[in-house]
């Protein structure tokens, strides 16, 4: 079985993975990092989003063996104690309903604000269109991203 060393949330993990096993299942079943969610398995819903070198990436499509030497951030590692501006804004707008997609939504939003600290509605819709929410929290997601941009600006612009 192939072996791979993954750098996840700043920590290196060396693990045996089945050939072609996507990063999603290495995270969930090998490392018990279950914050990254399985939903569609074909890269269309965004529930499995992680950041790879800062870019939102569908972990259900990425073979784990191709992820060596990359900086992987999962929802568990976005902040030390849930105080990332996006996480704070998500709570203050009470975005989640069932909540299952929100880890992916939050990582996508964090990456957006990294690129564009003051996105308008069109920017948000464009950046977030790959992340589905079956409960339909899109309106609150928009509001929360704007609020997060505000929090980040107040904190000194570093999202």
């Amino acid at each position, binding site marked *: 079985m192939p072996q791979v060393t993954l750098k996840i949330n700043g920590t290196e993990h060396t693990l045996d993975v089945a050939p072609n096993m996507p990063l999603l299942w290495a995270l969930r079943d090998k490392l*018990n990092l279950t*914050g990254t*969610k399985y939903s569609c398995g074909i890269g269309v819903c965004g529930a499995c989003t992680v950041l790879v070198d800062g870019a939102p990436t569908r972990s259900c499509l990425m073979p784990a063996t191709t992820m060596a030497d990359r900086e992987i951030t999962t929802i568990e590692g*976005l902040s030390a*104690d849930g105080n990332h501006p996006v996480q704070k804004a*998500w709570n203050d707008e009470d975005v*989640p309903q*069932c*909540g299952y997609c929100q880890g992916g939504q939050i990582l996508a939003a964090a990456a957006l604000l990294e690129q564009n600290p003051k996105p308008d509605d069109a920017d948000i819709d464009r950046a977030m269109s790959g992340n589905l929410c*079956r409960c339909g929290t899109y309106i609150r997601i928009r509001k929360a991203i704007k609020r997060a941009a505000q929090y980040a600006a107040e904190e000194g612009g570093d999202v």
Partner: protein
Amino acid sequence: MNAQRRDDRGNMDRRAFLKTTLLASGALLIGVGSCGNSNTGKTARETWKPNLYVRIDPDGTITIVSKNPDAGQGVKTAFPMVVAECLEVDWKDVHVEQAPADDRYGRQALGGSRGTPDGWDDLRIAGTGALTLLMGAAAKEWDVPTSECSAASSIITHEPSGRTKAYASLLETAATLPAPEVSELKLKSRPSEFKLLGTFVPGVDNPKILTGQPIYGSDIRLDGMLYAVYQKCPVFGGKARSANLEHVRSLPGVTHAFIVPGTDEYSGLQPGVAIVAETFWEANSAREALEVDWETTHADSSEGYAEQAKTLAAEPGETLRHDGDVDATFDRSVTIVEASYHYPFVAHATMEPMNCTALLHESGKLELWAPSQNPQTQRKLISQTLGIPEGRIHVNQVRIGGAFGRRSRLDFAVEAAWIARETGRPVQLLWTREDDMAHDFYRPAGWHHFKAGLSDEGRMIAFDHHFITLGMGGKTVSGARLSANHYPAGLVPNFRLRQSIIETHVPTGPWRSPGHSAYCFAYQSFFDEVALAAGRDPLEFRLDLLSQSFGKPQLDSERGSGTLRVAAEAAGWGREMENNRGLGIAFHFDHRGYAAHVAEVSID
């Protein structure tokens, strides 16, 4: 136990009672029970074990239990809020716990929009009862009348002297007092009395959701746990005769592969083939090599349904309701409008696919972690199917990644229980998205044929509705029934609802509203056509429809028109619009709920 504490006249059930227990830790526990269902000869009070609703710890922590499943509807936050409101404690001091499935809580289910209406009395009884007890304890310690005491933020104040006592200091004294009689409790009921209810309170699980903590069923990880996939027949109800199990067992990571004989119940243990492996990926990869010889008895095609619907549309069908004389009124109508609406089967597609984790302990106890809308019914079915007494089955409730009615069905949990017993290891069964779409209990397809007759004033004086729906053995299947008395029945003087049934073998079930998401689309689309033909404003047409009654409409028409007016006003109905833009309005009534929506639509 009755979940509702009211008799037919809406009076509080006098058989409900409170019980308090002082734990060794010094914590005070308050539960709500009910007499009356005991056949043991003992009174329920003697046999009753506390169903924890409220626990107050000596350090002042208030623990409130939420008994119902939460799939995003927010009940895990809402229920404790009601208790906290009545107990006069600050929300920041409240710790919320999720109850396991336990019959002592009464109905623990998500469905029918019944959670909060059913829980409302018990929750207020628990909170108010606990408060009454603490007030009594303070009054006793001070030797003053209770009427001179007030409570706020976990502190009792003796108004005349200004003395105060924290709840946490009163637990021992409170435990010595008789539990208050439920019938004597004064329960808050008016919005003006509320401090916490009606305020913005973020969901109690938010901190865990937002940091990716393991709170969903598919996040459960147990020592030595294996992962299972379950292949069912692509034709509903088909059975596995044989499969290339030896080959599948030889594939990487696979530990077990076996046929599950199953039963004929759709919402039970359907027959199939289980593959169990060290990881989900390996189990599911092995499935690609699985070859099964299926035995099927029927094959339905939704294309065939469309053909049947066309044929049935020309027939009269069964008349479910007829007010006035629809056909005669059509003859004297100035304008006739006809339109048909159709929608296909719809899957629930919850973000979190069906899953359940099961562990058969060495003691013989079966433990499950089930993202379920019906944990109690699921336990019953598992008991019957596996022959394990209900008392030996413990169902933990986990946060649910979307439900929408799908998780009211029982299949996934009994599958996990069976597979775990066969393998002798803790097992997490996880359906793929493909499994989820292929084996749902779909919102039924439906065909609506409408005909309206208008008077010279443009009023809808006759309405004929031929609903072609799905059934089994001549009876509508789950989610396919339309009540004859539902909106707009009772609002049109000449009204007829006819029904025809297409036989189906497709599993169906409630889907959110349950059927009204579909019915509303059909009705409201048609009413726009009628308003257009009558040359009337769509809002004004709908308000006019609500202004008359013939017989007893199920809804409160004034509330209906009020809802429409509020939505119209908020959207600026009637305002100037750009050329390629327009507003559309819709109204529906269902489950005692009134809804009006306005959409602004542009055409490119």
